């Protein structure tokens, strides 16, 4: 009984329950006013940050081949590493908006073509050097140069000119882009002394923690940066990231108390993990989605009726229930969901309809089986999902041949090469970025081979449109085009599911990326 009262108290403090309701419920449970008030203040106390200790995170997605160079970061551990030692100009706040980091202020010209970022003063790098706008410029240069290897190159391509003007960095764009601040939140763009041109993998930045141990694929150890410019982070004296790629080992490490938080709890075992005492499951709805992609320029998928047939033949709810075990939401054959600003929720939800599927399949004139390629590495549970798809197709009279490919080499041999396969997207902070990355005709990763001139024009218009209502309408129209004609079958958006010890305070939901957008170690604390 007292347990549930305590939990109620926490809800009040977290702002999820109002005080009056709490008092009513407390009274119903037989607790007096004094006791209830006491509980409330206790719960409030528990939210006060506590300094000190060693906070440990067990993370999947790390290899002994990892480097600290943020330009080549692509899996979870390098991503989280970057957020310990480094800072970006701007980051995504918990509410999905923009939060200032090393840029104190930012603004744009009326045509959204020229952007200024005022660089924060008095910030020191771990090596003692003071942050200057020149360092920021050098960083942006390193990621956008002709011979860069950076994963942020796609983001940087729209930039035409860059220069330092006093305290500010001025960026000139080829075309208007109202979303540039969101692009600057890209995790590759950690600001490094001289842009990391001297030693990109030194792990030196302005972040809350200084690197002391770097054993790629094993562990990364940090101690507190005493000169941190930001006071509301870096509570633990030391933090450590342990690379634990094996699901069972990761959960066991959390269960036996060897780590305080783990990344990526497999949805299959969430219910079991919930039963472990002293462990909470935290989930955040994200922008990541698991997909089946068809090349719209390759037979038989160049026929929109066949694409529609397959879209009607997938049971989205079943996928969410059986593949994500409820930790996700159904998709609507477009790469965006409610997590995006400017999302319209009034586009009709497509659902499983064997009759319509059979109708469109017949109309397409295609006969015989359709080949779908998959591998477990393309998304967790991809093979199972493909088999579910096969069964729901069979009910519509469509034969789906599921061809299992090896995980090894999947991204180079199957994805973006074969006409129909399973894949995933981690999502992007804005619709513009998501569509420009994979649906614009000229996109590097146009993995559905989607070429639509109207769509391209609308994308460019929306990018320069500063009127919110107009912009939302354009994105709605674009979404509808992809929904009806695209090569994307998007049955589900997956949540970030993480396991956290009850001894950890300060957890917040941030949908942008795994582990509170990489900041779990720096924003959480150990209660005792």
């Amino acid at each position, binding site marked *: 009984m007292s347990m549930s009262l305590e939990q109620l108290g926490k809800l009040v403090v977290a702002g999820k329950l109002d005080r009056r309701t709490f008092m009513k419920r407390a009274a119903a449970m037989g607790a007096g006013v004094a006791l209830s008030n006491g509980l409330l203040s206790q719960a409030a106390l528990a939210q006060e940050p506590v300094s000190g200790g060693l906070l440990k995170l*067990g993370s999947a997605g790390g*290899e*002994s*081949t*990892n*480097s600290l*160079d943020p330009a*080549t970061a*692509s*899996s979870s551990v390098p991503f989280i590493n970057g957020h310990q030692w480094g800072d970006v100009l701007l980051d995504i706040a918990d509410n999905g908006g923009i939060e200032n980091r090393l840029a104190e202020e930012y603004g744009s010209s009326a045509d959204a073509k020229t952007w200024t970022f005022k660089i924060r003063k008095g910030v020191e790098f771990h090596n003692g050097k003071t942050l200057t706008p020149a360092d920021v410029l050098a960083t942006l240069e390193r990621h956008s140069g002709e*011979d*860069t*290897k*950076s*994963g942020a*190159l*796609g983001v940087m391509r729209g930039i035409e000119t860059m220069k330092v003007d006093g305290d500010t960095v001025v960026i000139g764009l080829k075309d208007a882009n109202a979303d540039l601040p969101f692009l600057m939140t890209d995790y590759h763009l950690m600001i490094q002394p001289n842009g990391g041109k001297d030693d990109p*993998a030194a792990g030196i930045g302005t972040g809350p923690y200084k690197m002391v*141990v770097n*054993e*790629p*694929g*094993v*562990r990364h150890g940090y101690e507190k940066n005493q000169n941190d410019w930001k006071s509301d982070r870096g509570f633990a004296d030391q933090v450590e990231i*342990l*690379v*634990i*790629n*094996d699901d*069972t*080992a990761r959960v*066991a*490490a959390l*269960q*036996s108390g*060897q*780590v305080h938080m783990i990344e990526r709890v497999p949805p299959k075992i969430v219910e079991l993990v919930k039963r472990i005492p002293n462990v909470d499951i935290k989930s955040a709805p994200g922008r990541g989605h698991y997909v089946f992609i068809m090349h719209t320029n390759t037979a038989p998928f160049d026929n929109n009726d066949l694409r529609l047939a397959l879209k009607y033949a997938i049971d989205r709810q079943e996928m969410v229930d059986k593949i994500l075990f409820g930790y996700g939401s159904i998709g609507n054959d477009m790469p965006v969901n409610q997590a995006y600003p400017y999302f319209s929720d009034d586009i009709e939800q497509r659902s499983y309809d064997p009759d319509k599927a059979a109708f469109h399949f017949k109309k397409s004139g295609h006969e015989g089986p359709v080949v779908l390629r998959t591998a477990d590495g393309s998304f967790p549970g991809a093979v199972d999902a493909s088999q579910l798809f096969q069964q729901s197709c069979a009910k519509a009279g469509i034969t789906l041949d599921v061809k299992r490919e090896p995980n*090894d*080499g999947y*991204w*180079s*041999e199957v*994805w973006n090469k074969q006409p129909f396969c399973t*894949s995933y997207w981690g999502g992007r902070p804005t619709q513009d970025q998501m569509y420009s990355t994979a649906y614009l005709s000229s996109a*590097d*990763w146009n993995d559905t081979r989607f070429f639509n001139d109207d769509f391209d024009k609308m994308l460019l218009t929306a990018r320069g449109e500063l009127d919110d209502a107009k912009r939302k309408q354009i994105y709605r129209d674009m979404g509808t085009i992809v929904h009806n004609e695209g090569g994307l079958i998007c049955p589900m958006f997956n949540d970030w599911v993480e396991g956290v010890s009850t001894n950890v305070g300060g957890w917040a939901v941030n949908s942008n990326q795994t582990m509170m957008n990489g900041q779990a170690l720096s924003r959480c604390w150990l209660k005792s």
Partner: protein
Amino acid sequence: MPYLIKLILQRLAMGAGLLLAVSALIFAGTEILPGDVAQSILGQSATPEALANLRRDLGVNEPALARYLGWLGGILTGDLGTALTNGTDIAAAIGKRLYNTLFLASVAAAVSVPLAILLGLIAVRYKNRWPDKLISSTTLTFISLPEFFIGYILIYFVAVKLGWFPSVATVYESMSFTERLSAVALPAATLTLVVLAHMMRMTRAAILNVMQSAYIETAELKGLSAFRVIFKHAFPNAIAPIVNVVMLNMAYLIVGVVVVEVIFVYPGMGQYLVDHVAKRDVPVVQACGLIFAAFFIGLNMLADIVAILSNPRIRYPR
């Protein structure tokens, strides 16, 4: 004696030749893997320009033979090169990993070899009676279970429920010897259970084979105790096959423990190799492969030499 030295030198030369052949095989193997290092490093989010730039920087555009010969030349001068993926010095990285692997293998061997031989001797002494049957059935049960299963069982009961040893066996340089021992306790126990049956059964079979000999009968008729007959008279003559199987298992403990390393998050050679294979980091794969091959060939050679020394009859050609 000169004949013996010649024999050993011959074995060494053969080993070196084998190593060269193995290096060519590994290289060919890595060449036919699908995908390339640049694509693997940058993952799904790679742009064509970034890929092209990375490929050029890494020098993977050169012809295969040139890369192979260059690497081989480096090995001969003691230079393992740098990893393509993160630019670390391969020799330094492997040094640490190899030490960890050898530490775990030594702990497992230090427990399993004497235990296996002792159990084998006991099994012979009580042949077909309950101790023999108990030893055989238990060890055979463990060898029949997959390693990951034994590992998970140990993690669940010993680490999570009892809390005796950590489930994560990460070792740090700053650790003392006893801390290290405690960290590797569970992976070493898993490995011991996995290799025990093989060595125990071989010991048992080899000694039983010798027990058929006439001189054993003589020893028994002298009135010696059963253990004395087995240990003093039968065991020395069964050493060659036992050493063979022990060496085979030692080699396995060094080169074949990837699964155990993954489950216990142990920073050994296996995981290091697997990560680099996945990224097509050829120089590292080659170096690891060569080191593994060297251990395999070296241990087998050692077994041969011990066999030759323990049995004067095979020192000379018939």
